[in-house]
């Protein structure tokens, strides 16, 4: 059986490799949107004629950070391979705006075996320029505002605040609390209102500056999309990490999934190396799918400005922690990438697979907003 698997894998790999030279399409961007893109790409008849051969690394299932889909495009012929590396919205916008100058890493052709490799990282990579990218915000709210890209809004992407098992045990955060926590010296008293709680601190653990989740968070809270935070990182045991000589700074995880994996940690008795005390608390911002992972691990979901997350609250605009999800394309895409862009941008594409929780169909929304710095206005 093992030999058969190897032969099958080799055959799949060789088959894909032999055809992929003429038909590889490279896709990057939002980690928060990787689940809905996975649904659209694996559904027979949406992009591929039949369910594609799917290879996954570094996350597993629709949460994988590296994906590859092999099959025949609807209306096409031969085999097309779509390789995805979910590197963050801002990274994705930069990738496609650079018009083939900036490259990213994808699963190597030799590893395309139709297997879900769980948390394993690919052993070898294909480094290539990028054709398509997902982003959690319009380009006008991006770090890379020029050159202007061709893009289409495909759905609404939702986010949540969670906290770890820290000294703060509340269930709601406000913009003001968050802005102070972003500065790295916020005593717990700001969060619980107890004047005695000034000797331990509440920190934000978040994403790096290539993240669209971060863009939406910084915009929605009024901290400022481009403002530089004092975030911390901890490992899954709750040990505060020393990065570039500091325990707090403009740090952040490149993946929401990786961040989520740390938030089950209990830090009530951990060393706070930044403010030199013992015990601390962490809040974090995540896509709803990654928040579920964190909550399963032991984190607690938080209401935002007094409003708990629900699909209805998002649709009516009372819960404001959500963004406009876009697909963008490079100016120099080939015919296959153009075909995929058109299929995914159509209402029958990504929009059709919005589950109403992690993503919401545009037609289901009763409000809209220009971007993370603008309030939702009801229809």
């Amino acid at each position, binding site marked *: 059986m093992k030999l058969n698997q190897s032969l099958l894998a080799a055959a799949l790999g060789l088959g894909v490799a032999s055809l992929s030279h003429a038909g590889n399409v490279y896709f990057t961007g939002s980690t928060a949107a990787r689940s809905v893109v996975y649904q659209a790409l694996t559904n027979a008849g949406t992009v591929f004629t039949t369910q594609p051969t799917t290879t996954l690394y570094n996350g597993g299932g629709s949460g994988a950070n590296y994906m590859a889909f092999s099959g025949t495009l609807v209306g096409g012929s031969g085999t097309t391979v779509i390789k995805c590396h979910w590197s963050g919205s801002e*990274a994705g916008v*930069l990738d496609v*705006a*650079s018009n083939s*100058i*900036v*490259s*990213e890493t994808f699963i190597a052709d030799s590893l395309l075996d139709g297997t879900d490799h769980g948390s394993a990282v690919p052993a070898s990579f294909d*480094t290539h320029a990028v054709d398509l990218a997902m982003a959690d915000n319009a380009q006008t709210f991006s*770090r*890379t*505002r*020029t*050159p202007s890209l061709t893009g289409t809004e495909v759905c609404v992407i939702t986010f949540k605040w969670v906290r770890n098992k820290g000294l703060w045990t509340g269930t709601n955060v406000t913009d003001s609390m968050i*802005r*102070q926590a*972003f*500065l*790295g*010296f*916020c005593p717990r008293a700001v969060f619980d209102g107890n004047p005695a709680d000034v000797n331990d601190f509440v920190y934000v653990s978040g994403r*790096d*500056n*290539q993240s669209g989740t971060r863009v939406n968070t910084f915009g929605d809270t*009024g*901290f*400022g*999309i*481009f*403002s*530089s*935070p*004092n975030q911390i990182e901890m490992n899954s045991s709750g040990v505060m990490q020393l990065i*570039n000589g500091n325990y707090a*700074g*403009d740090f952040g995880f*490149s993946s929401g999934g990786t961040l989520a994996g740390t938030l089950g940690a209990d830090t009530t008795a951990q060393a706070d190396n930044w403010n030199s005390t013992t015990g601390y608390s962490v809040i974090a911002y995540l896509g709803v799918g990654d928040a579920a992972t964190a909550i399963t691990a032991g984190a607690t979901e938080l209401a935002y400005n007094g409003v708990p997350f629900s699909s209805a609250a998002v649709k009516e605009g009372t819960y404001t922690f959500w963004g406009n999800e876009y697909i963008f394309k490079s100016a120099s895409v080939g015919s296959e990438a153009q075909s995929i862009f058109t299929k995914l941008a159509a209402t029958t594409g990504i929009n059709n697979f919005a589950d109403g929780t992690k993503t919401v169909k545009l037609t289901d929304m009763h409000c809209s907003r220009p971007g993370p710095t603008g309030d939702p206005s009801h229809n």
Partner: protein
Amino acid sequence: MNKLYKTVLLAALGLAGVSAAEATIYTQGDLLVGFTVSSGNDLIYDLGQESSLFNGENWSLGSLLTGYNLNNVNWGVIGDVSGTPRIAFTTTDGSQPNLVPNNTAWSALNSAANTIVQFAGPASTAAGVSFSSDSSQSFSWNQETINGTLSTAYHNAYENPNVVGTVSDTLWAVPVGPSAIATELGNFALDGTGTLTFTSVPEPATYALFSVAGLMLLSLRNQLRNKKA
């Protein structure tokens, strides 16, 4: 992708506001002077470490300021350094600066400095580095210190450090503390050629020497008068 390679490529492309995963970091202790007319591009220049300032030090910035009318340009100096206590550096038009009552308040000023330099290019700022930013962007000198609406902007979190034109701007060191007293370090003066000159405040010992010298002169004058009488 190699960060430096990416930076070089993007610079060659002229892509605005791009950066690799790690933003440029403000070098703590450095002083940043910013110039803006609230339109077009702002100029920011790293003057180097505050601790290295010396009386009479000057910077010839004329070639960098050719796009500005120096008579109406807003300019000011900011900086900060971690330590015990943490210290913020800021210019004012001569008036006593506001307090920096706690570390959160200090961190807001440090965040502003980091925000201003994040697109400067190299991994961290250093003396002599200059860069420009679109004055309409939230990370520009204009938005951070004069016109921005974010509560995290320098002038909203603290105060506006700018003066206008070819005048002097007093530099202060403000330690963190609910009643900590700011120390006047000296003043910067901008002249019509775009040269910025720092003049330090004399040390207390120097004041004492001046006082002694003054008393001796008075005494000598009195002795001369007495002799004439």
